[in-house]
């Protein structure tokens, strides 16, 4: 089930909200909290089973395994070696499970390139959201081992943390330490709920109105492949994808945060106007913050971070960014995308460290945007070969024309939507003055978000199925 579907918006969400907020155990606050967690946990499992009826079993077993591992680690507090063995076994088991479903056919496919080797591919599909919930599980197990959090003793609360439907499928990756205190005792207020509704509608608008529109244009430009594409059209296609992925994934994250707020949770911000970044490091502080934070806390710092000299820091960055690329998908173009950023960050950190700060901010901003746009070419392409084909057109390497009549048509179609998106993506709307009168401001908000919601519903009714780009990770 996707958030931007009529079933979710008009049946699932209202039913869950009704069950969640009905004060069925009003006489006992603690009991009421347990009941609400149970409703949210049950609803999350139904949400997941809707699209993955078989893999819900895998998720439940994973929940059962890691819940008990957490308890076992805590029970073995007097035996450091035993604790280390347990956590190591659990991490390996969880990673093997992720690796099996996500990378087995990629590995087999690569082995099959060896002459006379022909291993049949496995008939396994990628369970939706496995990359996200495995990382949440790992954060829990490792933090219990580190003593940062206590093991959860209520399996419903633990299952709710892992399977919580607002962030189950495409994040943000919520670390257990950040949400532990919210599992019980979270606040529900009308203001918080309304704020959640507004953030949700904003996210829905980003996805349905912006991402889907610009995504269709990106598809149209590349419909005939990148062969014969002029440089101007190729750049426009790359810019369209740059906008599409931001509004698609950013929209999903907003919806997740908004839904979480409706149910009383505060999830971390996942995007902070990434396209206003003035360096690659700055970009990654603003893009998919929860994933960068996870790799920092559970891979980069345990490897030694930047404390063990230059050579080791470079190696650590290379490892982290190769893994970041691989996390996004089992294909070489994702590895190339990760390596591309790893290399740029190393360059920024060492040889260019003294030069970059001296460059005027506007030049740094434009350069960063060009680099990010080029990076998305690797990300959006089917293979490294097709990425280089498109890059060849963009940089006039393959002998294609700089511009053609077709690109004028594309610019006419894309110009206005891209301008609107830029205004939103670069934070322009935040600078729009708001009415000082409280009632007028409320009325403006109601009209604006009501209109966005209505427009989204019209688009959803008339559009084809449009899953989120990050679902496949």
């Amino acid at each position, binding site marked *: 089930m996707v958030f931007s579907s009529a079933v979710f918006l008009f049946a699932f969400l209202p039913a869950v909200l009704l069950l969640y907020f009905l004060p069925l155990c009003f006489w006992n606050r603690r009991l009421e909290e347990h009941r609400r967690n149970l409703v949210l946990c049950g609803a999350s499992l139904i949400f997941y089973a809707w699209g993955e009826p078989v893999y819900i079993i895998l998720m439940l077993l994973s929940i059962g*395994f890691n819940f*008990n591992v957490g308890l*076992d680690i805590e029970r073995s507090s007097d035996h450091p070696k035993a604790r280390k063995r347990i956590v190591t076994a659990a991490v390996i088991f969880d990673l093997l499970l992720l690796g099996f479903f996500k990378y087995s056919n990629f590995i087999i496919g690569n082995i099959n390139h060896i002459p006379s080797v022909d291993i049949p591919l496995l008939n396994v599909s990628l369970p939706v959201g496995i990359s996200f919930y495995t990382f949440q599980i790992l954060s829990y197990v490792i933090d219990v081992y580190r003593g940062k959090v206590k093991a959860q003793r209520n399996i419903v609360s633990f299952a709710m943390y892992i399977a919580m439907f607002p962030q189950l499928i495409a994040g943000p990756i919520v670390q257990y330490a950040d949400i532990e205190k919210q599992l019980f005792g979270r606040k529900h207020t009308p203001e918080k709920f309304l704020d959640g509704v507004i953030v949700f509608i904003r996210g829905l608008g980003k996805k349905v109105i912006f991402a889907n529109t610009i995504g269709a244009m990106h598809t149209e430009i590349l419909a005939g*492949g990148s062969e014969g594409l002029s440089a101007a059209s190729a750049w426009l296609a790359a810019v369209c994808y740059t906008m599409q992925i931001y509004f698609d994934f950013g929209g999903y994250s907003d919806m997740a945060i908004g839904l979480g707020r409706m149910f009383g949770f505060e999830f971390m911000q996942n995007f902070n106007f990434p396209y206003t970044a003035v360096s690659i490091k700055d970009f990654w502080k603003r893009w998919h913050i929860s994933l960068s934070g996870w790799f920092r806390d559970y891979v980069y710092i345990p490897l030694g971070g930047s404390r063990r000299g230059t050579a080791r820091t470079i190696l650590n960055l290379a490892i982290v960014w190769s893994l970041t690329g691989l996390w996004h998908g089992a294909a070489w173009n994702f590895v190339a995308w990760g390596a591309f950023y790893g290399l740029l960050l190393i360059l920024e950190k060492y040889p260019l460290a003294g030069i970059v700060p001296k460059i005027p901010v506007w030049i740094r901003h434009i350069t960063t945007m060009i680099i990010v746009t080029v990076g998305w070419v690797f990300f959006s392409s089917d293979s490294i070969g097709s990425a280089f084909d498109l890059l060849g057109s963009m940089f006039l390497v393959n002998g294609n024309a700089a511009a053609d009549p077709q690109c004028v048509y594309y610019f006419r179609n894309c110009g206005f939507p891209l301008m609107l998106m830029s205004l939103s993506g670069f934070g322009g709307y935040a600078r729009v003055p708001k009415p000082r009168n409280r009632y007028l401001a409320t009325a403006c908000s109601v009209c604006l978000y009501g209109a966005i919601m209505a427009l989204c519903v019209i688009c959803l009714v008339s559009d084809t199925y449009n899953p989120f780009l990050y679902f496949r990770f």
Partner: protein
Amino acid sequence: MNMPRFMAILCAVLTMAFVFFVTRQAPVSDKTAEEIAAQLTESFDTEGLTLRSGGEFKKTFLLSAGDYDGVVYYSADSVMDVRELLLVRLKDESQSQELTEVLKKRIEDKIVLFNGYAPEEEALLGSYVLESSQGFVLFAVCSHPDKVLETFKEAL
């Protein structure tokens, strides 16, 4: 052995059994989309149809051909001819749901389009074939849907 450890081991064993069960499901055919399509076109009259490129597939279905292991798409040259044949070799089974939803929506939209003034074309659309099996999805709008389906199953 303490209870949590026993339960964790039990869950791990059950997980491995589940993984074994999942991988023992229907096998994936080792044939390519082109091989299957070659057999299909023997029972499917392709006169008046043209083999389309990946780009045209993308334009028609808003799906990228590169996301799949193979795509063979024939559609009619005339806008009044609703016949088409699409064969997709999936990268994994999870792609089947998205693809079949798109194809069902396409049929629904086309039926609305032809409803009332092209009864023969509407009837062809109503008897479409949509089959997902052994890592392939077959979609066909033609005059002999049963024959095409039978050939598809034999070809896998």
